[in-house]
């Protein structure tokens, strides 16, 4: 690959405000309302007018609601009169954050509103996202994300890199953490033994190993340079952000490893300092083991203090929620430096890593 893609482009950009709706099994209203709540919350927190936001970008997926152009309706929540400068990615909101960060690097705009939203409750998420697979060779097999995750978890067991108990321990810890998160959806506690007594849904994964899909939205406000300090005493600076993809075909990959996370983490500079906190987009419990190992996280890093997606997975906002959770802890002074991870596709095919820091 040509070009030093790790180089700093010299413009400091920070998250100064975050907002999240609670993750709920079925939101009693349309997706634009979820979006609107976050947008209004961001504006109220900062005192900014809508017209003071230079650029807006959202991430969502039409297939959540089963409507082509569903994202157009989200404009009602985003606010688009007078006309706005905005864009949309059919990806998790974390990728909208990536584009917004690049847009601010150009230097002619200073503020960016980033949104991720999803309302999968009207449909069957597992069936809809089975259509992510290659339409010629894989989709006809009916391979859905949960089944593919089961294959990945099995590969970890076969290579003796994990046990089923490890998977259950991830779930127990996630639920314990989620209990103190008012936005989390699943908070009931269970012991490892109780979880391991449950039946398989995609062997060796059990129902609790699969993140429960939720309706929800998240938003963050990015601001460049000194203006960030005017809006927030302790902004969460984005020190690095990168994303990488791997082959779509599971047979071409070592499913027990994640080279895309390692590459993204290296280019985002994750190892340039201690990582106090990491929010990982673990939508199947075994993925935490792969992501931790690929990021090189040690004992000093607190993982998913929010409970993570296993306590509630607002599809298409989940990755941006990870960023918001890390940014919140930096802005309130709990931690100095953290990593937020997002993923897309079956078996962690595509991964994004962002590194956030507070001022010393």
């Amino acid at each position: 690959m040509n070009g030093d893609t790790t180089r700093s482009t010299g413009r400091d950009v920070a998250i100064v405000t975050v907002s999240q709706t609670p993750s709920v099994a079925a939101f009693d209203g349309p997706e634009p309302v979820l979006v609107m709540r976050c947008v209004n919350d961001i504006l109220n927190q900062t005192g900014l007018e809508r017209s003071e936001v230079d650029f807006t970008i959202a991430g969502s997926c039409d297939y959540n609601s089963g409507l082509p152009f569903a994202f157009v309706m989200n404009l009602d929540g985003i606010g688009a009169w007078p006309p706005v400068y905005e864009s949309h990615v059919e990806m998790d909101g974390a990728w909208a954050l990536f584009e917004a960060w690049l847009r601010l690097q150009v230097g002619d705009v200073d503020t960016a509103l980033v949104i991720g939203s999803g309302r999968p409750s009207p449909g069957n998420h597992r069936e809809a996202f089975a259509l992510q697979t290659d339409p010629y060779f894989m989709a006809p097999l009916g391979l859905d994300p949960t089944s593919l995750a089961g294959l990945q978890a099995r590969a970890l067991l076969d290579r003796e890199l994990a046990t089923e108990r490890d998977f259950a321990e991830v779930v127990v810890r996630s639920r314990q953490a989620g209990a103190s998160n008012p936005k989390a959806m699943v908070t009931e506690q269970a012991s490892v033994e109780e979880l391991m007594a449950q039946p398989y849904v995609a062997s060796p994964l059990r129902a609790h190993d699969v993140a429960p899909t939720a309706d929800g939205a998240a938003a963050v406000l990015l601001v460049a340079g000194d203006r960030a300090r005017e809006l927030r005493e302790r902004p969460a600076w984005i020190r690095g952000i990168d994303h990488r993809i791997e082959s779509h075909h599971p047979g071409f990959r070592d499913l027990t490893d994640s080279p895309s996370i390692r590459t993204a983490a290296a280019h985002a500079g994750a190892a340039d300092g201690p990582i106090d906190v990491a929010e990982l987009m673990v939508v199947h419990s075994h993925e935490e083991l792969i992501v931790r190992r690929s990021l090189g996280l040690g004992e000093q890093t607190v993982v998913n203090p929010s409970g993570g997606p296993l306590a509630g997975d607002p599809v298409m906002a989940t990755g941006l929620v990870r960023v918001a959770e890390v940014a919140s802890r930096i802005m309130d002074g709990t931690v100095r430096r953290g990593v937020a991870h997002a993923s897309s596709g079956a078996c962690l095919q595509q991964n994004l890593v962002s590194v956030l820091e507070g001022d010393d």
Partner: protein
Amino acid sequence: MGRPCAVIGTGQTDYRKRLDLTLDGLVRWAALEALEDAGLTFGDVDAVVIGKAPDALEGVVMPELSLADALGAVGKPIHRVHTAGSVGAAAAITGATMVESGRYDRVLVVCYEKQSEGNATWALSGGKSGGQGAGGTFAPWIRSYIQRSGAPEHIGWKVAVKDRQNALRNPHAHLHIEDISIEKVKESPMLWDPLHFLESCPSSDGAAAVVLASEEVARASPGAPAWVIAHAKRTEFASFPGRDAVRVQAGVDCASVLYKKAGITDPRRQIDCAELYVPFSWYEPMWLEGHLIAREGEGWRMTEAGDTELTGSFPVNPSGGVLSSNPIGASGLIRCLEAANQVRGRAGDYQVDGARIALGHAYGGAAQYFAMWIVSADLQPKLADHS
């Protein structure tokens, strides 16, 4: 204001129904052609941007995942844009931003649609059966334009003929109607009054690709670069009380900020040609006015006078435009790509003589999403004196 960015390679498939190619084959065809034009290979690419209209058009969710291998993106960033019909131009702008940011030196932007794999009118009706499609949305606004401007009804027929005549010079175009004529257009079936069948775009398959590069890479590239001297996007709500859906404020704002960034004060004279997103004939005069190229109520007079013909004073859609090929998600990128080819002197039989500054444009949704760029043969274009 960021680093300069240039188009250094372009690639297109033919836009007829492509039952001979998979989705993977379609996008790879355009990507390889663009890379070859740029003198690069997949290994040289830093990042990939992929754009298309709704996933439901082909029934593949988040196709960047299944197309990553075909696009040589494994190990790299691949970024998926979706802004309705404007997505092709929006993807081009995202790619330009990636270069301007200083982060990437070579960005491959690929857009596609394979309408033969699904039912576009179903999807364009919001996934409901019995919908009226895009033409049903736009026809009342076209009638409103006709009423406001007093344009004669043959203006739409004239655009339909002109774009199809241009398409006869473009080997990639879907429609090659050798005997196209005013008579033929007006005698074709009425679809959405006042739009006849031949005043509407076809349903096409196809992919288009551009390679965007930093100044250093562009100056070392084998062909002439097209410098991206300005780009702009604006969006507004689909509907609200008092909305002017004919002269759309987001379109006016988008053009204003675009020309300001480019230093253009008189687009009619300072821009040499334009590729405008015209899926239905009447949108040529509507966008000439709605993007400040013609004064309000006078866009149709440019069409009437032949100014927008290939040899006219302001050629519009020399390639044949969306009226001759509409792989929806790619159509906006094709407009941007054709504008670039004009200023690179690479437009073949539909080259506009002496074109040095060109406009690429797309719109989408309920005429509410706008994305536009201006490309030039010169990094510091010498704008014609209009005083």
